[in-house]
């Protein structure tokens, strides 16, 4: 990835990530999060991980964020006005943030992280290579994940199902 592209995308993702926490209107926060995800996806694509980049856009920016939007609308969240949280929250929040920053700082300073990007074999991010890995080396993890997702889907359907008595009482209802 060219350095100017990296700087451009890094600035966009950092500014929009700040926008997620700084803005007061939840819909604006959500849009900033979408922008962050898009910038990261472009970064993946620029690193030749094309499939991962596009999947990030399809799954996160295209589907999960829309779900978030629905939740915001459903809960009718309004823009927060005035200070949020009490003094205690601010106190512990500051401590937690400081701890996180210190931890990240120490982690990033460790010598083994100063790795130079050497590049991978051409086409390592293509769908065929990804699929080959997924269905050979990581088959068990892949199948376990799909069973987990299937269980979640069945659970969602079971929870969303109306009890049969309610359905009978409203024949031909529009809902």
């Amino acid at each position: 990835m060219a350095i100017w592209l990296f700087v451009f995308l890094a600035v966009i993702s950092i500014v929009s990530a700040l926008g997620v926490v700084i803005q007061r209107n939840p819909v604006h926060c959500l849009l900033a999060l979408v922008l962050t995800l898009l910038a990261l996806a472009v970064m993946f694509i620029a690193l030749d991980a094309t499939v991962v980049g596009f999947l990030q856009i399809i799954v996160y920016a295209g589907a999960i964020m829309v779900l978030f939007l629905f939740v915001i609308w459903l809960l009718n969240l309004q823009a927060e006005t005035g200070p949020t949280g009490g003094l205690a929250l601010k106190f512990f929040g500051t401590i937690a943030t400081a701890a996180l920053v210190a931890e990240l700082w120490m982690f990033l300073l460790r010598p083994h992280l100063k790795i130079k990007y050497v590049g991978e074999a051409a086409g390592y991010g293509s769908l065929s290579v990804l699929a080959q890995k997924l269905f050979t080396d990581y088959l068990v993890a892949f199948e376990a994940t799909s069973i987990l997702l299937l269980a979640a889907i069945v659970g969602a359907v079971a929870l969303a199902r109306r009890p049969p008595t309610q359905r009978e009482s409203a024949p031909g209802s529009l809902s």
Partner: protein
Amino acid sequence: MTVEIISSIVMSVLMILIGLQLSVFLLYFERKGSALIQDRVGANRAGITGLGKKLGLPNLGIINTLVFDPIKMFTKEDFVPDGADKFLHTLAPFLALFPVMITFVVIPFGDTISIGGHEIQLQAANLNAAVLYLLATIGIGVYGVALAGWSSNNRWSLLGGIRATAQMISYELAMGLALIAVITTYGTLDLQEIVRGQGGVYFGWLPRWGLFTQPLAFIIFMTAGVAESKRVPFDLPESESELILGYFTEYSGGKQAVFMLTDFAEQALVAMLVTTFFLGGWQVPWLYRDGFHLPGGAFIVMPALAVSIAGILAFLIKVLALCVFLGLVRWTLPRFRYDQLMRLGWKVLVPLGLINLLVTAFLVVAAGSAS
């Protein structure tokens, strides 16, 4: 290298212009074609000089639909309702239009053409994961309508926005399933390769188009595509008898024109995608690189340049025919009810898509092990 960059830029501009031109055609067809279908006269006013009348030509209303209507729209007051989110209200139409416009660039509109010793791909951006790219841009397109509905501070708008979002997400699934079956058949995510795979014939006469190899996927994709572009019979988000105009109720002037343009551009995009995946893209039946191999053994030689140009023309004719077909559907069918729409999406198209995928995968594996 520079030739490639220049040709890529030229192709991108050309492709977006083709998309816009098709939108203009659809706008005219919306006025005059609907009149033809419904036995009305339709747009027939406002010639400039009366020249056409003197020559005895019928006034087709081309100038008032394509010149004066847009001028009128873009000079109207740009109204932002009280209490609306001004920033998002302004951004939303462009968020809706942008993903559609950038999707046009991956569609191949011809095979390679050789000009001055350079082999030029007739495709603006040759991505090897183009199918994923289109699913991504289609997914992003939801935000424009969703935010237009939300930012207008109007309940009709919000309802329209929510309907549009739910509808687009539901039908994206069916669309994706139909596409996976096509990908499995042709074994690639590259649109140009998918079109190339549709060359050749079965039984000596039937072109190997997606329409014949994946008929069920064709129907699913076509239906989901119409639903995705929010046209009748799936225009629930803007159903004017219930929601005034749905998510763009509170838009006027130029921004409303951008929403209308988005609708037409989406319809053009659906036509192009169906052409690419199911109607053989730029393939002309029985035409190969050296000429026509007609069924029955006849052979007509054609120069390479003529073959390339015939491909481009074939692509455009197929897309135009599909646009007209979509217009016919739009002006013939009544609108669905919202629960019918959701039932069709989730209980008919998605299971059908899954069965189709299963059968396709089985057949592909069987064919692979047989050979």
